[in-house]
């Protein structure tokens, strides 16, 4: 009976410690918790673009038909100018679903954590549907600017923005750097709150 009591006492004494082991942070837990967040957006860039609709000018017209068109247009009295602008948005994010177990290194004894985040990616976040009319002057015998012309201008401007921003790494470098800085501070704070001194970098 005494022996049974001793075993019972030992089990009772060590129970909180044994169950307490489950409370200990495990690298896999930290990894799963971060990975489940998926896409975290960290920085947004607004890019402005301005374009102009006007009748063709003879000196700038291309080809024979373009020159002829400009010549006929020059005979019409009046002016036809419309200046328009709109904004495009780019977002820098980390896709935490790309995180691998080996990217999270936890030292439970020293309470330190190393997180190697997936690289920051940049994506377009759409553009303003509205086209802002900065200036409009149509006089004399000139015809009003049509919605089809504005749509064509916007299409050309969008193609140029894509070429200048998305296809050009240097243009989005500032956005990427801003996102990396935000990610480092946010994840460092988060892990500090979990009780770790964290080092955060990017793969």
């Amino acid at each position, binding site marked *: 009976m005494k022996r049974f009591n001793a075993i019972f006492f030992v089990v009772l004494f060590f129970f909180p410690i044994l169950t307490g082991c489950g409370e200990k942070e495990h690298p896999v837990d930290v990894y799963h918790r971060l990975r489940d967040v998926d896409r975290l957006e960290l920085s947004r860039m607004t890019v402005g*673009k301005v374009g102009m609709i006007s009748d063709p000018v003879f000196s700038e017209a291309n080809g024979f038909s373009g020159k002829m068109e400009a010549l006929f247009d020059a005979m019409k009295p009046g002016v036809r100018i419309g200046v328009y602008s709109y904004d495009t948005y780019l977002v820098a994010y980390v896709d935490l679903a790309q995180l691998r177990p080996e990217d999270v290194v936890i030292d439970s004894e020293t309470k330190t954590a190393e997180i190697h985040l997936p690289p920051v990616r940049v994506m377009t976040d759409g*553009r303003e549907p509205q086209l802002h009319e900065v200036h409009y002057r149509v006089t004399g015998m000139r015809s009003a600017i049509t919605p089809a012309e504005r749509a064509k201008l916007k299409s050309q401007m969008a*193609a140029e923005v894509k070429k200048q921003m998305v296809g050009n790494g240097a243009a989005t470098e500032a956005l990427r750097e801003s996102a990396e800085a935000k990610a480092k501070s946010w994840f460092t704070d988060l892990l500090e709150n979990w009780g770790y001194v964290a080092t955060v970098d990017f793969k």
Partner: protein
Amino acid sequence: MIMKWIKIIVIVLAAVLAYYVVNMLTAERKEREYKTKTARIKSIEQMVELCTLDVHEEVPLKDSVNGKWIVARQTIEGRVRFDLDSLKVEERGDTTIVYLPPERVDVMESASPSAYEIYDSWDASNRLFGRALTAAEENTLKRRWQKNVVKRVYDRGYVSRARRQAVESLTPLFRQMQGPFGKEGPVIVIDPTPSGTRR
């Protein structure tokens, strides 16, 4: 002599006219290039936002304003986001409660060059001397379409789904958050408005 010069002038003019006509009929019509300025970075802002839902739709549209009609196609991109920098945290006893913030539903036109195409536009109130749809009127229509997409995102339950997903993502993230009693107290993530906050 004069007749000879007249013949030469007529032949030259006919040749120029023939070249112009042939050129008009056969030459590939180059898309007109408009004058544009180089794209300019206006701002870069930092944030921490959780994006749990993307919507991508191609919408045919027929609508009118001030008697002027338009038929168009628009590709839209929508996203449901949560600002993690503005989380409301409350401490009740030993429990820390994290409230899921109101969602932000962003609906934009796709940045693709072919995202907006006009098929037809006309003035139904004046068929003889039709007035063109102005940029301001077109913007009024586009704001209306944007509102309709936002309404659809709510009506189809996308926002509820996005909020559920956000709670699932954030719960493990904040479970180990240190409350007023260190790690002793539990941390729970609560969604105060599961079907969203319509504005």
